[in-house]
């Protein structure tokens, strides 16, 4: 692949990226969340079409017309979320849509099982082709995906974070299989966050940052630190407002928040007027921690204190009543009722504050919403306008207005700037600072390192469901934070074994 570029509305996802695979090679692709790894692989898979650039397969230029065409050309992708049919057998999944038939159109089961046995033989596993997918566990499911790719005569297999759901010994077995594939002449494009694994399994690595290729090199020439250095250190394009680090009294304290398989012993506190950043990779458990704190999920243990006193948070209703707001990442899906008006959406959090004998006092609500809509600069023809008819940026603001009209002590923002343009980002930063200045504590989950390092007065780094390190503003470099987030910090080395617990 050479000179690949791709833009999405508002973002340039890839800028003239080159990537190549030799026969029997494992070529790793690394980068921060949003660096463009998945976009590049989706172009290779024919899911997206590149705006610019060429794709060459075995000396001939090809123009992917869709996923099916690329599969026929020998490219198979194993996505992070497995795409198998849970209640069909291993064999049926491998041959889905291509079942061997006998005369009369009946499925030739014997042939199917025999073929699958042959496909699976090199893996040296005890896997019954008749077993149902849902019963065999993630490691075997992945093997089934690989076998399916081989049955499609794939020369190139793309693996997106294949080890994420696997335990230690399963990872070893997967690597053995990958080595097997290599010696059989299959090439593997390997996307992973786990740099130590990459050293174990890959021959070369390409580092992407902000849609640009930083380096492609043999892994024997690069240390883990080198790779991290290439991943971070983005050129600053954002304007960050000046944030005062004058924190007031403690308003929120969380002690020992634990949920099996999600997070372990998470403790932290937040003060009035401060912005507390949660750094880490997608999947580290930050969103889940906040959902536990917000009562959206039930925690196993852990205590929550607000304004010095322990509070009972067993539902989102408890959380909101005690003064916690959560602005979710998926704002359209989780923050809005698209078919309702700006008024209804904005008032969803405050109806309980404005009722007399069960009747809503609409004039009060209208007044508060009108003020908020004005101060946030939401552009809408009227408050009765359905939210689905607003522009994306204005929809974002309706989510904010819905929480700002209810005066909370703690505002949790989950990836507040993901997928929005630079101008809108600056506005959101300003709003966060002004909330903090009014005495609220702001918690900000962000996978954008420069953002979280510039905005937060303190940063907590989460890895595998634990807080692994804490830095004050200016105490850490991006390399340090990224290294902690990847689980490479001194503290986390000991915890590496707990990763399996996530499965």
């Amino acid at each position, binding site marked *: 692949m050479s000179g690949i570029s791709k833009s999405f509305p508002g973002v340039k996802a890839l800028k003239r990226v080159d990537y190549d695979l030799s026969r029997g090679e494992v070529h790793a692709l690394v980068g921060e969340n949003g660096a463009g790894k998945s976009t590049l692989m989706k172009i290779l898979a024919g899911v997206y079409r590149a705006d610019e650039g060429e794709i060459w397969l075995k000396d001939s230029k090809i123009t992917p017309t869709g996923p099916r065409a690329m599969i026929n050309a020998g490219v198979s992708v194993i996505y992070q979320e497995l795409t198998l049919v849970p209640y069909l057998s291993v064999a049926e999944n491998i041959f889905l849509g291509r079942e061997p038939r006998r005369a009369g159109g009946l499925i030739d089961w014997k042939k199917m099982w025999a073929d699958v046995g042959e496909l699976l033989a090199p893996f040296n596993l005890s896997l019954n082709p008749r077993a149902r997918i849902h019963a065999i566990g993630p490691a075997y499911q992945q093997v089934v995906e690989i076998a399916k790719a081989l049955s499609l005569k794939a020369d190139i297999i793309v693996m997106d974070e294949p080890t994420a759901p696997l335990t230690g010994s399963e990872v070893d077995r997967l690597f053995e299989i990958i080595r097997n594939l290599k010696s059989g002449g299959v090439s593997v494009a390997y996307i992973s966050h786990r740099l130590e694994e990459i050293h174990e399994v890959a021959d070369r690595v390409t580092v992407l940052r902000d849609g640009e290729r930083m380096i492609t090199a043999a892994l024997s020439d690069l240390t883990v630190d080198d790779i991290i250095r290439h991943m971070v250190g983005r050129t600053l394009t954002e304007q960050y407002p000046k944030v005062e680090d004058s924190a007031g009294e403690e308003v929120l304290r969380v002690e020992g928040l634990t949920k099996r398989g999600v997070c372990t012993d998470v403790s932290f506190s937040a003060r009035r007027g401060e912005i507390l950043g949660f750094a880490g990779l997608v999947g580290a458990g930050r969103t889940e921690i906040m959902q536990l704190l917000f009562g959206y999920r039930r925690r196993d243990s852990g205590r929550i204190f607000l304004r010095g006193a322990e509070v009972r948070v067993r539902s989102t209703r408890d959380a909101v*009543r005690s003064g916690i707001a959560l602005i979710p990442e998926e704002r359209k899906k989780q923050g809005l009722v698209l078919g309702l008006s700006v008024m209804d959406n904005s008032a969803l959090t405050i109806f309980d504050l404005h009722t007399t004998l069960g009747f809503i006092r609409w004039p009060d609500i209208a007044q508060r919403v009108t003020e908020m809509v004005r101060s946030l600069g939401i552009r809408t023809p009227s408050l009765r306008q359905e939210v689905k008819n607003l522009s994306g940026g204005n929809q974002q603001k309706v989510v904010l207005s819905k929480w700002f009209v209810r005066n909370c002590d703690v505002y949790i923002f989950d990836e507040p700037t993901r997928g929005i343009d630079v101008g809108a980002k600056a506005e959101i930063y300003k709003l966060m600072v002004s909330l903090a200045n009014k005495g609220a504590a702001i918690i900000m989950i962000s996978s954008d390192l420069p953002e979280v390092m510039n905005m937060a007065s303190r940063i907590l780094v989460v890895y595998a469901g634990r807080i692994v390190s804490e830095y004050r503003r200016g105490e850490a470099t991006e390399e340090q934070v990224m290294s902690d987030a990847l689980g490479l910090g001194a503290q986390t080395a000991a915890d590496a074994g707990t990763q399996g617990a996530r499965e």
Partner: protein
Amino acid sequence: MKLDLTRILRSYGIVIAFIIICAAMTVLSPVFLTVTNVRNVIRQSSIFGIMAVGMTFVILTGGIDLSVGSILAVAGAFSAGMLKGGLGIVPIVLLALVLGIGCGLANGLLITIGRIAPFVVTLGMMSIARSLTLIYTKGYPISGFTGSFRFIGGGEILSMPFPIIVFLLTVVVAWLILTQTRVGRYTYAIGGNEETVKLSGINADFYKTVVYVISGITAAMSALILTSRLNSAEPVAGQGYELDVIAAVVIGGTSLSGGRGSVWGTLIGALLIGVINNGMNLLGISPYFQLLVKGLIIIGAVLLDRLRQEPA
């Protein structure tokens, strides 16, 4: 001008259809537009119309209640039995309502806490409530009432039949609840996006339960009217009513996927079904054909609704 016409069709299509059908009936049958007949149509519509008002709440949350016909039967049978046993009118009305609330509450709790699909829960309740009715009545109607109970179905206030008054009051109260109370606003919001509602600090399960209770209450109200009107509680009363009830809501423009619709639409939907039933009887159309026509109208109404949803 042309654009305005399509918009009018989209917003008021069902009202226009209703007017056209009424006009056609007036031309075809001299009896149709007489005071007696119109009162008859509305009175007949009010039985399932009241239930359709409750059903509107359920469907607005994206749910469904198949058990309304059976709840009607069970509430009617027990009330009739107790009435025969000498209970007064006020306890009888309360008894019916408590039965409706109980069935609705059971539906709601199984759906929210039990996490079972509304279709399945209310299908089960449909069977259970019908069975309770048959057990209680041993399969025989309970009939022959006297005094004030007969007023519920047959009485008039200022020459307005009492069932019609109840029906219209129900519509107005429902409209007030839907627009002026939290129950109402959350009902729309839950149907639009339940996850958002939960993440807004609202106990969505509570409000989802409430709508099934409302549906149970309206079924019990219809039970009292029907039992009084027929002067008999039949063990098979209300069988198949859920179809006319759901049809009235859907024809009235409430989206089966929830979040969109109004109780005024349901009023029109119920009247439309009433007019069709009445009209085909007046025209002497065989009942075998009546179901066919009703089926076509239900499908047509949903098609119309799809047109409305698609952007102009």
